[in-house]
């Protein structure tokens, strides 16, 4: 029988949000200033991972080109900044729209294939975007583009506190996370899961399979675009390497080690993967192989992701 979660489990997300919100205020006294930027980066990648978890975990679409949309978002910001736009909100919104539009076209073609062909064709599209970015000499080509002019948040936010971008990112990440949790248990989310488990039956029940999958794909692409735009603001630099296929594979890896189709899978996977990389880099320049070993071990020992290890006998939501 499924027990109702205790008060601790219910309040845990709020405690997490509170401590994340207070972190920049406490960091200077703890000498952890560097980690404000690190956590900001984590939160941005979590958005991309959560969007991928949605189509991969709930939709069963094994896409190996998600970093392409991250790149589209980032390059939209580059193009706008280069054109003289200074409003951060405008640039981010445009990035969401452009990434969504790319996802609509790419999804419309890719979703006609399935299985490994879907994986390959999404990979091919992201490689095309990568080559396109490399050849854009106006935006630095292979060397990338530095955002010299800062993007402004407006309404007096920009000079309020040095870490104001952190709180904006945190708020957006929290909102998106809540939204994706709600969406997962909505009619749409259940329809998507039904399609993942038995497409024929869902078609027989009258669900518009292709349209539902495409809608999920476009939404995930748009969110990845937002993550890319925020990444551009975060690093003040964009290069084609954000769309390299290994970046897509890393996103996939983070989702799977976190827990595919599990609410906390995306955030847990990102936190685990990036923190581990950060810690290992402190001690050795050979930080990749322990992560590779971790992947192999997780595939064999915890195939449902690290989140499942904490679930006990309860069934995942």
């Amino acid at each position, binding site marked *: 029988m499924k027990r109702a979660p205790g008060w601790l489990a219910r309040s845990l997300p709020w405690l997490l949000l509170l401590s994340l919100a207070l972190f920049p205020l406490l960091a200077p006294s703890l000498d952890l200033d560097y980690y404000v930027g690190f956590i900001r980066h984590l939160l941005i990648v979590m958005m991309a991972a959560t969007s991928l978890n949605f189509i991969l975990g709930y939709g069963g679409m094994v896409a190996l080109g998600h970093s392409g949309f991250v790149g589209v978002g980032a390059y939209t910001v580059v193009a706008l900044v280069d054109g003289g736009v200074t409003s951060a909100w405008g640039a981010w919104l445009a990035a969401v729209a452009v990434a969504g539009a790319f996802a609509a076209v790419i999804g419309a073609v890719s979703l006609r*294939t399935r299985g*490994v062909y879907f994986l390959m064709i999404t990979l091919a599209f992201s490689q*095309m975007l990568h080559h396109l970015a490399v050849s854009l000499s106006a935006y630095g080509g292979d060397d990338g583009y530095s955002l010299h002019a800062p993007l402004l948040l407006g309404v007096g936010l920009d000079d309020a506190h040095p870490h104001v971008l952190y709180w904006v990112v945190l708020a957006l990440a929290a909102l998106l996370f809540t939204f994706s949790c709600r969406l997962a248990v909505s009619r749409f989310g259940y329809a998507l899961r039904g399609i993942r488990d038995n497409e024929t039956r869902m078609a027989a029940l009258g669900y518009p399979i292709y349209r539902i999958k495409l809608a999920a794909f476009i939404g995930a692409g748009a969110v990845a675009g937002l993550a890319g735009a925020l990444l551009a603001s975060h690093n003040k630099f964009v290069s084609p390497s954000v769309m390299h296929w290994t970046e897509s594979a890393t996103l*996939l890896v983070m989702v799977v080690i976190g827990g595919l189709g599990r609410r906390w899978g995306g955030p847990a996977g990102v936190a685990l993967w990036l923190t581990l990389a950060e810690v290992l880099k402190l001690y050795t320049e050979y930080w990749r*192989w322990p992560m590779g070993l971790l992947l192999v071990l997780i595939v064999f020992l915890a195939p449902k992701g690290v989140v499942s290890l904490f679930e006990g006998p309860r069934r995942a939501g």
Partner: protein
Amino acid sequence: MDAIFIIEQILNGLGYGLMLFLLAAGLTLVFGIMDTMNLAHGSLYMAGAYIAAQVHQASGSFVGAVLAAIAATVLVSWLLEILIVRRLYPRDHLAQVIATFGIILIADDGVKALWGPSPLLASMPTALAGPVQLLAELPYSAYRLLLLGAGLLVAAGLYLLVNHTRIGMLVRAGASNRAMAELMGVRVDRVFSFVFALGAALAALAGALMGPISAVQIGMGEAILIPALVVIVIGGIGSVRGAFIAALLVGLVDTAGRAFLPPLLRAVLPPALAADLGPALAGIAMYLLMAAVLILKPAGLFPARA
């Protein structure tokens, strides 16, 4: 652009295509027989290139270097198959992608520990370093000719092996319908172990041969893996013949795109735009080819599955 230049580029394209075929042949059989997606295939190519460069430098014998690279890589792949890949057969593609991506990370660090982070300088055998006069006005690199010859020879050998030997028949049976082959008494897992080692040998050969004309560096496996995957998808997963035709197509399209598109575009477009568009179009040409093939024939040109 004259006829000599065009012939030269076509030969380059065929050479690149044949090397892609060496990689894709193993990949497509592993995929076709055991439905296993092996991203670490590129790492075997990298291993071949590094070992060959090292042995060649130490011993001075190029043939010895290639043979040593093949032997060592097959040994590594044998361990890999026993320890990890064998346990991945029953899993889904996603688990295979994750685990073999992990192997890539381990392999890249292993190579870095053994040979250091900077690229290795692989030299051509001195006897083949110069050009050969193919036609009166067409000098062509002797080493690239060797590449063409070796690629064709291996392709012919593989054709005989797959189509005219008993083990080849078992391989084809496994690729076209594994369950049926197993019911008929074929030990498909043993056939697969053989195919995996064969694929590793071909990947190492490709790496050893490509080393002197490309950069022997960490990440070279990841870079060539994607074109190899494109080849097996175009050719039809599990089909060696499809991989051969698709590899030549991809090699030609990629090389021709890089060589001919920029000058052609310069002739019709403003120079600044042409300078941007040329490399971009050349880079995406093979992906467009794949998309076009998949639209017309969703299972590739020569689908192996019955």
